[in-house]
């Protein structure tokens, strides 16, 4: 199959060969480029937000600009970075290889997903032409009905990106059901695949509801249909039900793939069979299932009935169970393993640390009585950044380093990578831990100003954001330096056991010389 030294990168040349490619690995690279670009833009917005909050009163921008920065940071990071992030990049690249397939089930659909993401992103960002959007990423009515007309573009863009997400999920489900190689039973697939499977189920089931919600919002804007407008007899709380029926499960779209990555990292760098494979696999499914009955916890103070509040509060606590199962299993895997502290492993351990803080504060917020105090304060901001950034982005960084040799065929500088971890980890905690205290003291979220009493902690938080930025720059340098240094990567630099490490780095166009056949579990270390 092809000449020696041929791989998926050099088997065809020219920009066109990339833009019309049907190869899942090349599509993954397209996602790498686009998601990292979006991440850069969203990150700049985040730094702007923190800079403005360095001291009270308007410093570098006025309130309107701040609101737009806040909205763009949220919308870009949610819809363009962490939702597509791990599944679209690493799922696309490794899901087929991990189950011994030559490609995903529907390669054309796969490419279409990428184009839809790009198209949706352009439509969203075009809202800047209409005074931007200042509603926050949730587009709550009535703000979104009364405010800038840019909401129409932004929501249409999110709708299109939602379609991209649905198609990716659909593709993954069929791939996992139908394209597993001989011997690759559902009990033998790697845990990353289990995580992607659970994610895909949520993508297919929840995203259509977001689709109809956003379409109704557009109709509301364009024609004033009034379904969410109390002046015409509509119900704004109904909008929140519609929105959170998708958007709560969506936070598990963000975190489940990250958890899958962590399972891979922990077992590889501990050189030990994963503890409780079945428990971790089924807890992914359990999280996906439970995610559909808990959305009301976003609405404790928005006029939802007390009965619903109590029910949702109780159900939300259930999420803690499968999440804790995973955490304990990861720690148990490390116990008496031969842990090597590679950069990816550092990110995995960092994940467990910050995710635990994020998870436990989540239980605090799930308690309806406490949420009345914490709701819409910086406590919530700190909580979801501990879960989303500390969770998903840490896993994304770990995944980038872990699979770098396989994807590009080169090794990177381990020291630089570790340095990026140090900066990101410390910077992250310096940025967001003070926000827990700020929130508990009553600083509301989303405002561009605050009373002088909050100044010190806000300064610490802003300085932390600079540390994170330095960390990501070092990370980028690590990646680029690896390309320049061109140190050839062996097929299996980490001594990992999953199928992607049995083939050459980078893989050939068809992944495998011949269809592989497996007879045991994915992590038979010792």
């Amino acid at each position, binding site marked *: 199959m092809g000449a020696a030294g041929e791989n998926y990168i050099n088997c065809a040349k020219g920009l066109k060969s990339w833009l019309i490619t049907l190869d899942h690995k090349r599509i993954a690279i397209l996602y790498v480029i686009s998601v990292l670009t979006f991440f850069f833009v969203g990150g700049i917005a985040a730094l702007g937000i923190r800079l403005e909050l360095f001291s009270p009163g308007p410093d570098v921008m006025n309130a309107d600009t701040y609101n737009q920065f806040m909205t763009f940071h949220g919308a870009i990071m949610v819809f363009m970075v962490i939702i597509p992030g791990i599944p679209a990049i690493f799922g696309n690249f490794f899901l087929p290889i991990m189950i011994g397939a030559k490609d995903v089930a529907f390669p054309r659909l796969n490419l279409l997903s990428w184009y839809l993401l790009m198209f949706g992103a352009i439509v969203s960002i075009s809202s800047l032409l209409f005074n931007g959007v200042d509603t926050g990423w949730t587009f709550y009515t009535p703000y979104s009905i009364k405010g800038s007309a840019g909401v129409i573009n932004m929501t249409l863009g999110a709708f299109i990106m939602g379609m991209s997400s649905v198609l990716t999920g659909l593709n993954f489900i069929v791939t996992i*059901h*139908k394209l597993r190689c001989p011997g690759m039973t559902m009990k033998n697939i790697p845990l990353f695949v289990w995580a992607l499977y659970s994610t895909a189920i949520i993508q297919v*089931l929840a995203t259509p*509801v977001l689709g109809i919600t956003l379409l109704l919002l557009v109709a509301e804007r364009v024609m004033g249909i009034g379904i969410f407008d109390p002046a015409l007899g509509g*119900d704004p*709380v*109904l909008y929140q*039900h519609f929105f959170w*029926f998708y958007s709560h499960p969506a936070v598990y779209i963000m975190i489940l793939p990250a958890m899958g990555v962590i399972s891979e990292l922990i077992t590889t760098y501990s050189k030990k069979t994963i503890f409780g494979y079945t428990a971790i696999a089924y807890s992914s499914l359990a999280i996906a299932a439970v995610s*559909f*009955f808990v*959305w*009301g916890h976003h609405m404790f103070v928005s*006029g*939802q*009935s*007390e*009965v*619903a509040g109590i*029910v*949702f509060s109780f159900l939300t606590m259930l999420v803690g169970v499968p999440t804790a199962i995973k955490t304990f299993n990861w720690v148990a895997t490390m116990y008496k393993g031969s842990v090597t502290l590679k950069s990816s492993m550092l990110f995995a351990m960092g994940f467990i640390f910050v995710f635990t803080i994020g998870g436990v504060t989540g239980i605090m917020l799930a308690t309806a009585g406490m949420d009345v105090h914490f709701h819409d304060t910086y406590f919530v901001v700190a909580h979801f950044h501990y879960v989303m950034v500390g969770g998903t982005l840490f896993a994304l960084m770990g995944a980038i380093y872990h699979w770098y040799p396989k994807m590009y065929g080169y090794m990177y500088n381990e020291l630089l990578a570790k340095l990026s971890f140090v900066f990101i980890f410390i910077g992250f905690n310096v940025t967001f831990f003070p926000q827990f205290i700020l929130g508990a003291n009553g600083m509301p979220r989303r405002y561009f100003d605050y009373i002088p009493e909050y100044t010190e902690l806000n300064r610490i938080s802003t300085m932390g954001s600079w540390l994170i930025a330095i960390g990501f720059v070092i990370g980028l340098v690590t990646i680029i330096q690896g390309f320049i240094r061109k140190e050839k990567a062996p097929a299996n630099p980490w001594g990992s056991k999953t199928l992607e490490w049995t083939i050459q780095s980078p893989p050939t166009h068809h992944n495998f010389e011949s269809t592989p056949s497996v007879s045991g579990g994915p992590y038979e270390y010792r």
Partner: protein
Amino acid sequence: MSEHHEHHLMSFKTHINVFVALIVLTVVTVLLSSKFGLVDFGKAGLLVALLIATAKAAIVMGWFMHLKYDGMMNRVIFLSSFFFLVLFIFFCLLDILTRINPRL
């Protein structure tokens, strides 16, 4: 799916029978509605209409959409959508009905 299995082909006559059944149910749902007032179900009218519609839907899914002869997995996939829809409706109604009438 390595084993080869024959794909079931439904006969012409079954197609026609299914169509007739659907038409009959349509006539029934119209006759039972308040437009004719043959039977007064009162508030249960909505429930009756939904039941008949579900029966029709089941016929379309089973025969026209071939789900009766399809694999278990496709059946589970398609029917799961209704399960999650019911979940959505249940929790929304839980909120809205107890909001209108807190004593409920």
